């Protein structure tokens, strides 16, 4: 059940490359949030920028804290990046439908694929998979970014879970020199119906991953973005075209942000 809170910033870490990690004291959200869900954040009393901004749950912790991981793009994220510990932030959440975590048939590999800041929801997802799914479920993480600087601070968190992500960078400064969808072939080969993919990143990257999964007959969940005014299905602004199988338009904040790749019109 989502709620609206005035929460306190516990810490704000600058991870370099324009990426920040906010730790927020928001016990109800930390308790209820699932991987793939998101929150709406807004800072300050001013009327410009006007709208709240959506951010995936990066982590929830047992002690009532939660984290978001974000990239500074415009004025909204600039304001969040300027928040000091102790400051307040308006928060609404947890919102939307997260990743579906049904137990996979034995022998299925689970693949988490993140591109750029799309890595944000995957740490939480990895932890939940480890917690909920049968021991021995094979879990691979593939991450792409522009350069090493963007990725490095996040790898440690996956390693703490015993996971060693395969990495691709646009400039070759870390791992594979190229795009993250190419890692699919590298890591898992061409054949086999044994993978289930969870993906978050820029649209073209997700489209490429979805297409590779379709070719292979793999289930693929994607976490989509859309311009949002509310985050809780009041404005109907966050439409995304469906593939026609179910709906003409989905609403990212309510039907998603996580969708089955096959339900999405990749255009």
């Amino acid at each position, binding site marked *: *059940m*989502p*709620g*609206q809170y005035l929460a306190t910033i516990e810490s704000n870490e600058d991870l370099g490359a324009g990426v920040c990690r906010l730790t927020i004291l928001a016990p109800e959200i930390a308790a209820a949030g699932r991987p793939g869900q998101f929150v709406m954040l*807004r800072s300050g009393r001013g*009327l*410009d*920028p*006007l*709208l*709240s901004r959506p951010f995936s749950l990066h982590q929830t912790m047992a002690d009532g804290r939660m984290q978001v991981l974000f990239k500074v793009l415009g004025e909204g994220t600039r304001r969040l990046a300027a928040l000091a510990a102790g400051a307040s932030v*308006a928060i*609404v959440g947890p919102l939307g439908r997260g990743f579906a975590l049904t137990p996979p048939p034995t022998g299925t590999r689970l693949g988490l694929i993140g591109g750029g800041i799309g890595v944000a929801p995957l740490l939480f997802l990895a932890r939940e998979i480890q917690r909920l799914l049968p021991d021995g479920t094979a879990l691979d993480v593939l991450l792409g970014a522009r350069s090493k600087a963007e990725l490095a601070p996040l790898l440690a968190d996956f390693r703490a879970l015993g996971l060693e992500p395969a990495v691709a960078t646009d400039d070759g400064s870390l791992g594979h020199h190229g795009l993250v969808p190419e890692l699919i072939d590298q890591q898992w080969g061409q054949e086999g119906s044994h993978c289930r993919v969870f993906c978050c990143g820029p649209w073209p990257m997700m489209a490429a991953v979805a297409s590779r999964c379709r070719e292979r007959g793999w289930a693929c969940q994607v976490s989509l973005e*859309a*311009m*949002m*005014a*509310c985050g*809780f*299905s*009041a*404005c*109907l*602004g*966050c*439409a*995304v*075209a469906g593939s026609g199988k179910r709906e*003409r*338009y989905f609403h990212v904040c309510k039907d998603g942000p996580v969708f089955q790749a096959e339900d999405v019109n990749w255009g």
Partner: protein
Amino acid sequence: MKADTEIDLKVKIGGCILRNPVMTASGTFGYGREFEDFIDLTRLGAVVVKGISLLPRAGNPPPRVVETPCGMLNAIGLENVGVEAFVQDKLPWLQRTGATVVVNILGNTVDEYAELAQRLDNVEGVAAVEVNISCPNVKEGGVAFGTDPAMAAAVTGAVRRACKLPLIIKLSPNVTDIQLMARSVAEAGADAVSLINTLLGMAIDLQSRRPKLANVVGGLSGPAIKPVALRMVWQAAQAVKIPVIGIGGIMTAEDALEFIIAGATAVQVGTANFINPRATDEIINGIVEYLAQHNMRSINELRNTLRT
């Protein structure tokens, strides 16, 4: 703060008595249930639901919303479930809560408006109908009903004949003379006017050189438009004797009070709901507080008290 009970917030719109003057604006409050986790709907003056058409509508392609300085543009394209699904699936829940429900309707032709009004006429749980006339008239080359006094009067008259419910006509601000529009619909049988709907606007993405909205143009709402809204509400309140409902950029109790001072009997809160889903509730509390501070016993003492 004094208790609500000591101060009379009740207002009358047509035959319909509202608990207080704070309503939600159509299209910004879903079908009400979207806010159940945030506020108690029965505290509100009324819940105005998303605009309803005869048949379901899928709405416009994305992108549908974009932020602008102190405002936002939307081109939702009037996505809604259609009147039958509304009556069957959405209204019963609302009715059970005990909320006062106003149904906002829209059509492509005068007949569609009338048919919608007739369909809603004897439906239990509908307290009033609000008619969105900012829609293109498909029989008149797509000019919005709300930009022509004769077409607006025609819609009003048709809806008036088709139902006995209190009738609110929602005016478009994209006109030269808002007083003329208000008078036209008042004469055609409106019980109240509500204004303003959104101002027509546009935004362009500099990199792609494309409009930021797939629909090219959209409706501007939020604090940016408040000065225009307040001016039009004040003008309308001087032009007609029926109640005027003020809408446009209301974020706080202070904003709402300004509209009431300018002559509004009630107000609607729109874009604010997105940013602060408890906005309506806080506005009601703020109004009570102001009246108490100023030793007023009733909201009626404040209405139309602008000293010009």
